[in-house]
């Protein structure tokens, strides 16, 4: 990624707090929960250097844990820079910043690990990680 993981702590914290709303946003999205009902996995999301461990259980019940507990296993990791999440979460993202693969192509995001659950539920994963678009920027 082009951006160093060390950045203005305030910007990263604002993004992290926005991401912490994910379980509530998911709980209110019945269509997304319907489409991902069978997806059970544990994965890591990096928000501008701040890690979150997410677990999805049947019915898309989500547990979100800030931080990366020692030696806790996860299937895959999606890590983006502050610029990536800031623009990806705009109500209308700008061209080239509007899709997870657009971000990986431009070097602002990495998607690594055992990608099977991510790819098998690709649209669900894209829509899940886009949910913070629904809340205004701080």
């Amino acid at each position, binding site marked *: 990624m082009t951006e160093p993981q060390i950045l203005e702590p305030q910007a990263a914290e604002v993004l992290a707090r926005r991401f912490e709303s994910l379980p509530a946003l998911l709980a209110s999205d019945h269509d997304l929960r319907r489409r991902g009902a069978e997806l059970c996995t544990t994965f890591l999301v990096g928000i501008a250097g701040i890690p979150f461990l997410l677990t999805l259980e049947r019915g898309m019940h989500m547990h979100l844990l800030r931080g990366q507990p020692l030696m806790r296993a996860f299937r895959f990791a999606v890590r983006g820079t502050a610029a990536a999440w800031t623009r990806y979460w705009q109500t*209308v*993202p700008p*061209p*080239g910043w*509007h*899709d*997870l*693969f*657009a971000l*990986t*192509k*431009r070097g602002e995001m990495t998607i690594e690990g055992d*990608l*099977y659950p991510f*790819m*098998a539920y*690709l*649209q669900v994963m*894209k829509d899940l990680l886009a949910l913070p678009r629904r809340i205004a920027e701080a």
Partner: protein
Amino acid sequence: MAAALASSPTATIEPIIGRYLNVTIAGRPQRLYFEEAGSGIPLLCLHTAGADSRQWRHLMVDEAITRHFRILAFDLPWHGKSNPPPGYERETYRLTTADYVATVRAFCAALALERPVVMGCSIGGRIVLELAISHAQEFRALIGLEAADFQEPWYDTAWLNRPDIHGGAICAALVSGLIAPTSPEVSRHETLWHYLQSGPGVFQGDLYFYRVDGDLRGRLGSIDTQKCPLFLLTGEYDFSCTPQDTERTAAQIPGAEVTIMRELGHFPMSENPQQFRRYILPVLERIRTLPEHPR
């Protein structure tokens, strides 16, 4: 424009006619489904990888176009309502430049299309460039949508065809990011439905042409836009064939005209037909008023 029925005023029938053409292409019998509408200058439209001719349905009911152009669009073999050839069950589908060119030329010859305009999108845009290189004299004008000589791959196509992942769902999910976020939801999901319905391995087979066999880097120098005008239009939200890819391509072709389309992605004709017509109508009007014979 769809016509209302006297028997049922709320029902309409669109002026699109669908038929089947049986034709031998590169030595193999093929049964091609095609649709057409309008009259005038033949305008052959080529769909994107992993999709079919339904992508062009909005153009085909646009009277501003059909009053001057006979719009035709076929489903490539293996796509839409065109069958795969006999024996398909014993082979891996791979689209090649030679087969794609042969299909376009066989279709035009069979229907006796006289110097048609060809407009293709994505893989269709790539083959338009190949036609400009190798068969320009056969065409009145060429239009490449989301077209470039080459694009950097952005995912591993091995994911597209494996028994433990739904092929249609992953193809649709991958290309969903190529649609502009401003495109209407109904049109977005209609565009994705074409991918959700595609046959196993078909999108992957098309991408063999797109990524490997159809690499045109270093071959554009022979294109003569005096013989056949070339128009390239690319959506700003297309990160597969980016505006920069198209501009780099056009910079190698004297006389090629480039338009970067705002609020459109990789599927302009189907993801946002109203926005697309703002860009394509002036191009078609330019073509309509070109001199009758090659300059």
